[in-house]
């Protein structure tokens, strides 16, 4: 194991990226904020995968590269592997982390039952909370996209948190 820092350091940075971009720089433009946050993650993922694959032979196909992300790459970042990997064998991969660390300190109730009654203030609060949580997901999505791009797989990555604290990352690549 190389050098370490307290987990609070990384979590503090993430919180600040989201609040700086989401509420200060681009307060009224959530799309732009999201794109910037994703770009920061992309840079990190790109550089990290470069470092972690230095001693390895080339991956023979996309599946091998994705497996590397699920096992070695995820372990370096979160000290655990992705819990479940699914694919349609046509370029779509679903990576599921049953307890995603970066959301585990966040308290939100994403239950969709109340979403019909928009007057309900608690429903509005929930929407806000869900929106805030989703802002936190652009960074890890960017990391995965950056890492895969560096391994020669251009793709789009999105996240689904309808089953918190589990988080599913969906990766779509055009090729394959």
């Amino acid at each position: 194991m190389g050098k370490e820092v307290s987990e609070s350091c990384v979590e503090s940075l993430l919180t600040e990226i989201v609040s700086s971009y989401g509420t200060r720089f681009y307060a009224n433009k959530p799309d732009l904020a999201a794109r910037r946050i994703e770009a920061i993650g992309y840079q990190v993922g790109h550089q990290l995968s470069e470092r972690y694959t230095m001693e390895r032979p080339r991956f023979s196909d996309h599946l091998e590269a994705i497996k590397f992300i699920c096992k070695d790459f995820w372990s370096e970042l979160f000290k655990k592997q992705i819990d479940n990997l699914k694919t349609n064998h046509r370029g779509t991969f679903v990576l599921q982390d049953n307890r995603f660390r970066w959301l585990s300190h966040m308290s939100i109730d994403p239950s969709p039952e109340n979403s019909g009654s928009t007057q309900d203030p608690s429903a509005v609060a929930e929407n806000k909370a869900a929106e805030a949580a989703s802002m936190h997901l652009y960074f890890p999505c960017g990391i995965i996209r950056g890492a895969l791009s560096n391994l020669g797989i251009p793709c789009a990555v999105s996240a689904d948190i309808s089953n918190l604290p589990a988080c599913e990352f969906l990766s779509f690549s055009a090729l394959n």
Partner: protein
Amino acid sequence: MAPVAPRSGDVIFASVERVNAELFTLTYGAIVRQLITDLEEVEEVNKQLDQMGYNIGIRLIDEFLAKSNVSRCVDFKETAEVIAKVGFKMFLGVTASVTNWDAEGTCCSLILEDNPLVDFVELPDTCQGLYYCNILSGVVRGALEMVSMKTEVTWLRDMLRGDDAFELQVKLLKQVPEEYPYKDDE
């Protein structure tokens, strides 16, 4: 019950959840890079990094107090030692040394020889005015403000600018007396 003894930075660092420092270093680097792209002016980047640090500091102080069992410091000298030996260690895994005290004991320097923020970093010529580690000065300022100390925190030496160490000057401007909500008649 006897008061709980303060814990050393090493002990706390060993007990907290830790992560790979590369993730931290590269994330910070990516933030700085993105800020430079978006804000264009290096001065503005310095300001925003300081602001982000301040926001982090005002939150991190709670974790620090909760985990360190440090009790009230008798003077600013002790405060500086605690930041250098316990605060830096429990979060960044490195310690700083405290030197260059002025006669009044209100201004000193924290010297960092090992700084996880700057691994892999080299500044291009276009970023000459950048205080790359400005987030750190913001953190110290924010954290101290939450324990009633107004400070001014500035970088005197910076290895990314060719100096031989990182030197952070912490100057105590004033100690704000604690205000209790005594007055109900206002």
